[in-house]
């Protein structure tokens, strides 16, 4: 905690965020109008903040204009991350079936560009959902892509047969520390807004921010994660592992999952910059990052290097 650089008078600890390999994919939701597309995306990405209990980290990457979607309608791109391919194969069809298939006028497409030869790591979409058609579903090959057309009450639900799974990275992060909730909230919101302009990353927690950052393990055997004592202000005076100083009373964390190290590093850079540029009236004091000493994740994002 001793070494730091300064950005707009805010201390940036010379530490690093430790991130892990994950499995990732991108899906594109389209609909007749933007309202339905965003409603479907909101449902699909619900309860998808952390793999710890949700099984998946999933959020909107960005909104897509009509000329960016496969069918020329308004759309939303979402990114999903899991710890295993098997979990992804379970989560995506379940969520697509309950959240996209159910939403009026929507269609669901693969958002990962196909390689040649085609990747054999596939996540089913229509491959699973087609059975809802009860024998009335229609498979349609257009070019090299197989779509499914499932009769539903507003016409047809159209979706890709499957989507390829790629390697992703989860757990890029930085922690904003200040002396009041309003200031840290303001800084977090500025950071998340800046990060949302970056392609290939998501911030899966509510509003892109979590106040319950976790450490690995627990005194309770059944739990493999528990509260991050080091950044809990109420434990500062009684926990020797606390990393907070006397004037630091609030900490919030922004977790970033991304499709590449470059995307996460870029997102961290613009996020930290935006937080430091935000109007917090001196309430934002310090930015640091969460790690486990470099022993668990192979991706290390050093704040000092990122901000160079």
């Amino acid at each position: 905690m001793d070494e730091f650089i300064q950005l707009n008078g805010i201390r940036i600890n010379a530490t690093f965020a430790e991130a892990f390999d994950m499995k990732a994919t991108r899906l594109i939701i389209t609909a007749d109008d933007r309202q339905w597309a965003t409603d479907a995306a909101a449902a699909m990405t619900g309860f998808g903040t952390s793999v710890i209990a949700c099984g998946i980290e999933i959020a909107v990457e960005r909104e897509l204009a009509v000329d960016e979607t496969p069918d020329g309608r308004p759309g939303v791109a979402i990114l999903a991350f899991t710890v295993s391919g098997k979990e992804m194969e379970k989560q995506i069809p379940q969520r697509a079936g309950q959240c996209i298939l159910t939403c009026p006028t929507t269609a669901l497409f693969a958002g990962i560009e196909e390689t040649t030869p085609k990747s054999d790591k596939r996540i089913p979409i229509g491959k699973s959902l087609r059975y809802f058609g009860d024998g009335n579903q229609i498979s349609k090959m257009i070019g090299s892509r197989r779509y499914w057309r499932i009769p539903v009450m507003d016409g047809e639900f159209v979706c890709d047969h499957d989507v390829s799974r790629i390697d992703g990275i989860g757990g890029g992060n930085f922690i904003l520390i200040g002396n009041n909730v309003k200031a840290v909230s303001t800084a977090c919101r500025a950071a998340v807004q800046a990060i949302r302009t970056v392609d290939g990353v998501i911030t899966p927690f509510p509003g892109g921010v979590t106040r319950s950052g976790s450490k690995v393990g627990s005194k309770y055997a059944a739990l493999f994660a528990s509260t991050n004592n080091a950044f809990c202000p109420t434990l500062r005076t009684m926990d020797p592992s606390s990393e907070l100083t006397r004037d630091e009373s609030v900490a919030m964390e922004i977790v970033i999952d991304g499709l590449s190290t470059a995307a996460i590093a870029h997102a961290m850079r613009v996020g930290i910059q935006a937080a430091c540029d935000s109007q917090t009236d001196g309430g934002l004091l310090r930015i640091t990052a969460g790690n486990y000493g470099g022993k668990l994740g192979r991706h290390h994002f050093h704040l000092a290097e990122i901000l160079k």
Partner: protein
Amino acid sequence: MNSWLLELRQQPEHDVDASAISLRALAQIGDPDQIKRLTLRCGQEPRPLGDLFSVSKLQSENELRLVGDLTRFHRLGIDHRSGRITIQGSVGNYAGAMMSGGEIFIAGAAGDFLAAPVDAFRSGMSGGRIVVRDAAGDHVGHRMRRGEIFIEGAAGDFVGSHQIAGTIVVAAEIGKSIGYAMRRGTLIVTEPPDTSRTRFSEPIEANSVICPLLGRETKAWATKNRALSFACNNVLQLVDRIAVDGFQSIRGDFAVGGQGEILFPR
């Protein structure tokens, strides 16, 4: 993968079985004289290919280009699997028979049984794409089970007969008995077809994003191959029209428990 240009030098006196003119076989041959020695069955007589065609090499990759009026040449592109066959002229019957991949572009007209199975085979086209710039004869896409056939002009009777899957678009008039015994698959035509009400449903108004998907993919493909004159403007216009304005859909053929669809503009 060698590419070859075959230019017709003289019209044959009889119909020709052109099965031997296969891109898959020709792409493995490096010597034009070897190609000229290939035997074609002309009527009941075998005849060297070199008697009918001049042969020269092309610079492109995995392509066979034929030039001339080939209406007496049947089974051209039979069992085609990959690469591009371009025919600058018209072709006879069974062009693209049982093809399973690649592209065939016919700059003129096609005869009967385009992409259909030959002899005692029961499966027609199972992949790839055929574009016919002019008209096509009867039984287009007979027993088709995958792939796309785009006819810029008119088509004869029994379009999509016994079709199992795949897409056929005919951008001008069609003959009688469209979709006869079709089980699945999509036929897109310009006008309401004259179908039996006992075998096909009443038309219903519908909309589906599958039409814009087909239109966009076809447009992208046509644009990519513009230099090779793979244009299919009439087909694109028709698909665009039903994508934007919606379409009417007829389902059948109920006589065989079919769920095929015939789409046409509202």
